[in-house]
C-alpha cells in the first residue's frame, strides 16, 4: 500500500491540540506516533508534549564541545609554548598556568558554542530541502500544521479527524 503524507492546517493551538489528542486516542493501526509532526509559527511546549517525550541531544554536544575546546585549547597553547616560544623566561615557568587558564576558558566557550550550533543543526535536521516534505507558507504566518505519514487507509482516518476539528485546509501527497 502507498505511503502518504497529510498536512492539516489549524487556526490555533487548541484545535491542533484537540486533533492530536483524538488522533492519539484513536489508536489507529499502522500509525507510528513518531511520524506525527507539528509545524507552527512559534514554539509551544504544551502542544508538543502531546507528541510525548522526544529526544533533545544538544546538551551532550555542548558538553563534548566545551570539554574538547577547553582541553584542546590548553594542550595547543602548552604545546606551542613548550616547542616554539623563544622568549627568555628568566626562571619563570615555560607553561604558566594562570594566563593559560584564561585562554583555556575562552577556548572552552568557543568549543561549547561551535559544537552546540553543530549539534543543533544535526538534531534539528538542518539544512534540509524544502521539497522533501509537505509545507505551507501559512505555517510561518499564523497557522498550526499537523503532519502525519502513514498508509492510505490510515491517512483517510486522519483526514476525518482533522475535518472534525475544523481544519482550515488539507494537503496530501504520496511519499516516493
Amino acid at each position, binding site marked *: 500500500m502507498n505511503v502518504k503524507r497529510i498536512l492539516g492546517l489549524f487556526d490555533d493551538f487548541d484545535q491542533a491540540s484537540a486533533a492530536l489528542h483524538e488522533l492519539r486516542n484513536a489508536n489507529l493501526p499502522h500509525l507510528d506516533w513518531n511520524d506525527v509532526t507539528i509545524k507552527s509559527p512559534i514554539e509551544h511546549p504544551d502542544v508538543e508534549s502531546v507528541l510525548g517525550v522526544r529526544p533533545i541531544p544538544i546538551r551532550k554536544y555542548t558538553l563534548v564541545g566545551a570539554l574538547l575546546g577547553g582541553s584542546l585549547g590548553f594542550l595547543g597553547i602548552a604545546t606551542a609554548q613548550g616547542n616554539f616560544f623563544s622568549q627568555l623566561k628568566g626562571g619563570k615557568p615555560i607553561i604558566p598556568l594562570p594566563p593559560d587558564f584564561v585562554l583555556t576558558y575562552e577556548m572552552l566557550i568557543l568549543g561549547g558554542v*561551535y559544537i552546540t550550533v553543530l549539534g543543533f543543526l544535526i538534531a534539528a535536521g538542518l539544512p*534540509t530541502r524544502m521539497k522533501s516534505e509537505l509545507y505551507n507558507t501559512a505555517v510561518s504566518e499564523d497557522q498550526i*500544521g499537523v503532519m502525519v505519514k502513514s498508509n492510505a487507509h490510515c491517512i483517510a482516518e486522519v483526514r476525518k479527524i482533522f475535518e472534525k476539528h475544523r481544519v482550515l485546509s488539507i494537503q496530501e501527497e504520496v511519499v516516493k
Partner: protein
Amino acid sequence: MNSVTIDGVPPHGGHGAGSSTGGGVTQAREKDIREDIAWAQINRDVLKSLDRPRASYWILFAFAFCLFLVGVACEIYQYNVGLGVSGMNNPDVWGLYIATFIFWIGMSHSGTLLSAILHIIHADWRKPIYRFAEAMTTFSLMTAGLFVAVHLGRLWQIYYALPYPNERWTWPNFQSPLLWDAMAIFTYLSSSILFLYVGAIPDFAICRDNASGWRKGFYDKLSLGWMGTDRQWRNFRVAYLVIACFLIPLAVSVHSIVASDFAMSQQPGWHITSFPPYFVAGALYSGCAAIITLFIMLRHTFRFEEYMTLPILDKTARLTFAIAMVWTYLNLIEYSSVWYGADAVAKETLIQRATGPYAVYWWAMNFLGSVVPFALIFKRLRANLTVMMIVSLLLNLGMWLERWMIVTPTFAHGYEPWTWNHSFFPSWVQWGIVLGSFGWFGMLFMLFCKLVPSVSMYEVKEMVFHRKLAKLHTREA
C-alpha cells in the same frame, strides 16, 4: 483566517489587527505590546521594513557612508605617510585608537545583556528589541577589530602578530593580556555571529515564504529549510538557551580582559583592582545608551511604533539608569581607593586628570556619565523621544570620553616625570578615523536592517500569545 475565540477573545489576534485608533492607543501606552495584534500583521509590518523604509533611512545611510569615506581617506593617508601623522609618539602611544577600540568593545555588551541575560530571566519585553541589539554587538566587535589594525600602523606587516612557527623567532607572549584580548574578542565575535544567526533562522523562513526574486533565494539559503517542525523548535529552544548561557560569562570575561590590558600594567591610574568590574559596568552602560539611540531611530525609520513601544523604552531607560548608578559607584570606588591609598604617584595622576590640560574632558565625562542619567528618573522625560535621544547621545559621549580619559591622561602623566607630555592632543587623522568608525558601524547596521528583520517576528508572536493567555487566565480566575 477564520477567527476562533476562547471566551470571546481571539487566540492570536483574529480581528482588530493593526488597528491603532480608538481605545487601542490608550492600552498600547500602558502595555509593552498590544495583545490583539494579529500574527499575520506582525509579519507584514516587519517585512515592510525590508522593502520600504522612510526617506530618513537613506539620509542616515548616506550620512554614515560619508563618515566612513572620511575614515577611509584618513587611513589611506596614514598608511601612505606613516603612523606619525596620527600625532602619536612617546609617551602617548595609544591615543584615540585604543580608546575607541574599548568604546566599541563596550558597546557590544548591549546585545548580550538584552539577548542572553534578559532571555534567561524571562524578561519578555526584550523580544521586540533584542535583534538589533545583537546586531549591534556583532558590528561593534567588527568595528573594534578594525582599530587593532589601524593602531598597528604598518598594515603590510600585520602577519608579524600572527602565531605560527617561523624563523623570525617571534611568537606571541601568552602571558600578555593583549593576546588574551585577541582570543577573547575572536571568541565573542564568532559566538555573537552564531547567536544572531541561529536566533534569526525562524525569521529567515518567514522572509523566504514572503519574498520573491533574488531575495527568495537569499532567504532560502539562510533559513536552511526551516519549516517550524516540533523537532526544530525543540532543539532550537535548547540550543538558543545554551548559547545564551555561554555568552554571559564570555561577555564578562571579554571586558575584564580588556580591563586587564590596563590593570596589569604598572601605569599609575591603571593598576587598580576594580578595573574589570568597572569596565564591564561601563560596557553595559554605553551599550544600553546606544540601544536607546537606535531604538528611537528604528522606531521612526521603519514605522515600528507598534513594537518598539514607549513602555519598552521606559524599561530600557530604567535599566540604563540602574547601570549608570553602578558605573558611578565603581567610579567613586576607583577615585576613593586611589585618593586614600598609599600610592602617591597614582594620586598625583588623579589630581592631574581633574586639574590638568584634560580636566575639561574629565569633568565632562563625570557630568555626562553620572549626572545626566538622573534625567532618566523622570517618567515624563522617559516618555519624550526627543529628550531620550539627546540623553542617550550624551551618555554615549560621556562613555566615549571615559575611555579617552583612561588612556591619554595616564600616558601624558606617567610614572617618570621625564616622560610627561601634557600638550598631547590627537591629530585630525585620528579624529577622522574615529569618525569613520562610526560611519562604518552605521553603514553595516543600516544594511543589516534592510536585509534582516530588525524585530524578531516569531518572538513578538510568542510575546503576544503568552500575554493573551495570561490575560485569559486572569479573566477566568
